[in-house]
C-alpha cells in the first residue's frame, strides 16, 4: 500500500520534471528564437529579407566567417541570388573555423563556406568538399623589429625571403588560433629548420585577440591572416615567412555540405553553389565594387579594414571563377590533402581517416552547373 503510493509519487515527479523541462524548452524556443534568429549575427537587411520571403523557398542554413570567404555568401544573399535559386538562406557567422566545425557537428548547419578548418569535417566523413572559393594570400608569420629571428635571411634553400635560423626560432612563443591556417603556417615554418612543436610554444587565441596581445608585447611571433596581417605590416612588424613560402601548398578556402544533407537535398546544394559562384564572378569582375562591399561588411562585423589593406587583400586573394577552374594547373582539393596529411603529425587527423578527404571531394555540382571537367588532386600530387 505504502509502496505503491511511493512508486506513484516518484513516477509523478519524474513525469513532472520531464514535462517542466519540455514546457520550458518549447516555450522559449518559440518566443525568443524567432527574434533571435532574425537577428542572428549579420544584419537587419537579412531580417527584412527573411520576412519578405514566403513559404515556397527552401530553407538552408549556411555557416561562414566575416572574412574573404564570407563575402560572396553575403553578397549573394543581399543581391537576392539565393532567392532566385529558390533558397531561403540563414547566414550564420563564426569568428574562426573551429566553432563553425562545432556547429556542423551539432547539425546546426547544412552547408558552409570555411577555411582550412574544413579539413576536420572532411576527414571525419561528415562533410563533402563541394567547391573551392578563394585563394588565400596575405597570411604569414610576423615578428617585431629587432627580433633575433630577423638576423638571418634566406638560410633555407629556395626561400630567399624567409627569415630565421633553428637557434633563433627555438624557444619562441607564437600567437594564433590553433587548428587553423595559423598553426599550419607555424608548424610548416619551423619544420624547415628541423624543429618540432616541442621546440616552440604556441598560444591559442582567436586572430583579433592574438593581434591585440602581440601589439601589447606578448609572445615573440604572430601567425595571422588578413586583415590582421596587414595591420601587422602597418604596425612595423616584419614578415618572417609567408604562408606560401612556409607551407609550399596553395590553400583554398571553400564550400562544404553535410553529406546527409547533400544526399537528401542535392537540388538545394546545387542552387547554393550556383548562387555562390555567381557572386564570385561578380566580385572578381569589379574590384572597386568588391572593395567597397567588403570594407562595408567587414566593418559591420567588427573587422576594421581601411582602403589600403583592402586593396592588398584584393591583390592577394582571388575568388575562384570558372576560368580558373578550367585552367590546366588547377588541381581541386590539393590544399586540403596537404593539410590533412600535415595534421596527422599530432593526431588531429587520424591516419586512418586520411582516405576520407579525397573521398569527400564532390565536383559534380560545379561540373553540372558550369558544364566543365575539373582536375581532382590525389595524395600522389603532394610529392
Amino acid at each position: 500500500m505504502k509502496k505503491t503510493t511511493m512508486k506513484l509519487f516518484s513516477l509523478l515527479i519524474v513525469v513532472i520534471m520531464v514535462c517542466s523541462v519540455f514546457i520550458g524548452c518549447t516555450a522559449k524556443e518559440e518566443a525568443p528564437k524567432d527574434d533571435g534568429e532574425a537577428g542572428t549575427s549579420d544584419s537587419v537587411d537579412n531580417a527584412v529579407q527573411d520576412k519578405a520571403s514566403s513559404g515556397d523557398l527552401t530553407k538552408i542554413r549556411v555557416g561562414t566567417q566575416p572574412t574573404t570567404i564570407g563575402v560572396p555568401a553575403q553578397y549573394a544573399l543581399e543581391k537576392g541570388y539565393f532567392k532566385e535559386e529558390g533558397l531561403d538562406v540563414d547566414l550564420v557567422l563564426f569568428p574562426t573555423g573551429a566553432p563553425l566545425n562545432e556547429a556542423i557537428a551539432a547539425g546546426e548547419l547544412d552547408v558552409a563556406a570555411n577555411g582550412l578548418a574544413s579539413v576536420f569535417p572532411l576527414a571525419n566523413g561528415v562533410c563533402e568538399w563541394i567547391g573551392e572559393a578563394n585563394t588565400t594570400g596575405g597570411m604569414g608569420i610576423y615578428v617585431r623589429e629587432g627580433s633575433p629571428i630577423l638576423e638571418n635571411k634566406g638560410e633555407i634553400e629556395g626561400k630567399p625571403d624567409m627569415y630565421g635560423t633553428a637557434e633563433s626560432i627555438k624557444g619562441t612563443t607564437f600567437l594564433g588560433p590553433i587548428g587553423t591556417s595559423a598553426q599550419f603556417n607555424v608548424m610548416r615554418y619551423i619544420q624547415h629548420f628541423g624543429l618540432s612543436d616541442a621546440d616552440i610554444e604556441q598560444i591559442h587565441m582567436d586572430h583579433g585577440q592574438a593581434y591585440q596581445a602581440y601589439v601589447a608585447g606578448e609572445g615573440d611571433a604572430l601567425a595571422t591572416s588578413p586583415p590582421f596581417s596587414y595591420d601587422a605590416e602597418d604596425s612595423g612588424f616584419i614578415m618572417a615567412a609567408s604562408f606560401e613560402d612556409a607551407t609550399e601548398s596553395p590553400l583554398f578556402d571553400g564550400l562544404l555540405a553535410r553529406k546527409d544533407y547533400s544526399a537528401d537535398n542535392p537540388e538545394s546544394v546545387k542552387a547554393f553553389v550556383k548562387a555562390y559562384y555567381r557572386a564570385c564572378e561578380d566580385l572578381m569582375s569589379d574590384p572597386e565594387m568588391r572593395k567597397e562591399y567588403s570594407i562595408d561588411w567587414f566593418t559591420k562585423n567588427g573587422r576594421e579594414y581601411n582602403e589600403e589593406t583592402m586593396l592588398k587583400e584584393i591583390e592577394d586573394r582571388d575568388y575562384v571563377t570558372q576560368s580558373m577552374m578550367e585552367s590546366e594547373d588547377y588541381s581541386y582539393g590539393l590544399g586540403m590533402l596537404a593539410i590533412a596529411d600535415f595534421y596527422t603529425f599530432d593526431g588531429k587527423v587520424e591516419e586512418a581517416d586520411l582516405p576520407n578527404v579525397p573521398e569527400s571531394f564532390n565536383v559534380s555540382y560545379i561540373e553540372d552547373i558550369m558544364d566543365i571537367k575539373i582536375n581532382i588532386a590525389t595524395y600522389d600530387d603532394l610529392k
Partner: protein
Amino acid sequence: MNEDISIDSVQKREKSGYIIISLISLVIGIFLWWLFTEGLGTISHKIMPGPIRVFQSFFSKFYVSAPDGATLLQHLGSSLQITLLGYVIGVAIGIPLGIVMAWYPKFDLFARPVFDLLRPIPGIAWIPVMIVLFGIGLLSKGMVVFLSVFVAITINTYTGIQQTKSVHKWVSHTFGASNIYTLFHVAIPTALPMLMTGLRVALGAAWTTIIAAELLASTKGIGFMIQQSRGLFRPDIIIVGMIAIGITGSVLGWLLGLLEKRVLKGRLSKE
C-alpha cells in the same frame, strides 16, 4: 555529511540495500547510454560517444597526446598549478581583508560599497580584462582565478566575523582583553566554520574559472584540451575532459573536507 546525521540506527540496517539501489541505477544508466550509442547506434558518436569509446579514450589519454598536444596528466598538472597559485594568493589576501572589513566598521563603510559592486561579476567576465592587463601567460590566468577566489573568501570571512556574538566580545572585554586579542581569540574562532565554507566555495570557483580561462586563451590545461577537441569531431575527448574536471573538483573538495574536520574538531560546519 548530512545523511550521517539523519541516519539513525534503525535505518542503518537498510543502508546496504540503498547502495545496491545506487549501483543498479548506475548500471542501468550506463547500459542505456551504451544501448543508444554503441548498441543500437540511435545517437551518432559524433554527438554522443558511447561509454566504451569514452573509457578507452580516458585511459589512452594518459599516454597519448593527440589531438591536442599533451596527455591528460600534463593538462591536469598545468590547470592545477595555476589554480593553486591563484587560490593561495586569493586566500592570503581575502582572509585578512574580510577580517579587517568586518572588524573595523569604519573601514567597512569604505570598502564594502566597492566590494558589493565587484562581487557579482563572475570570474569569466574578467578574463578579457586580465588578458589585456597581464598578457596571456600564467599571470593573467592566475589573476582571474585569484579574483574569483578572493571575492568568495572575503565574503565568507566577512560574514563569519560578523557572526561573532556580542556577548562573547563582552566576555573578552570585561576580562580586560584588547580589541586585537578579542579578534584573534573570539571573532576568528567564531568565523572559522564560515571561513572553511569559504575555502570550499572558493576552491570550486577557482576550478571553474581556470577552465573558463583555458577555454579562451592557453597552451595547455584541461580547458584547452576541451577547447581543442571542439570542432575536431572528438566529443569523446570533451567528455574525458569533463570527467577529469569533475573528478579533480571532487577530490579537491574532499581534501578540503578533511582539513575542515580537523580544524573544526568538535564543531559542525555551518553550511
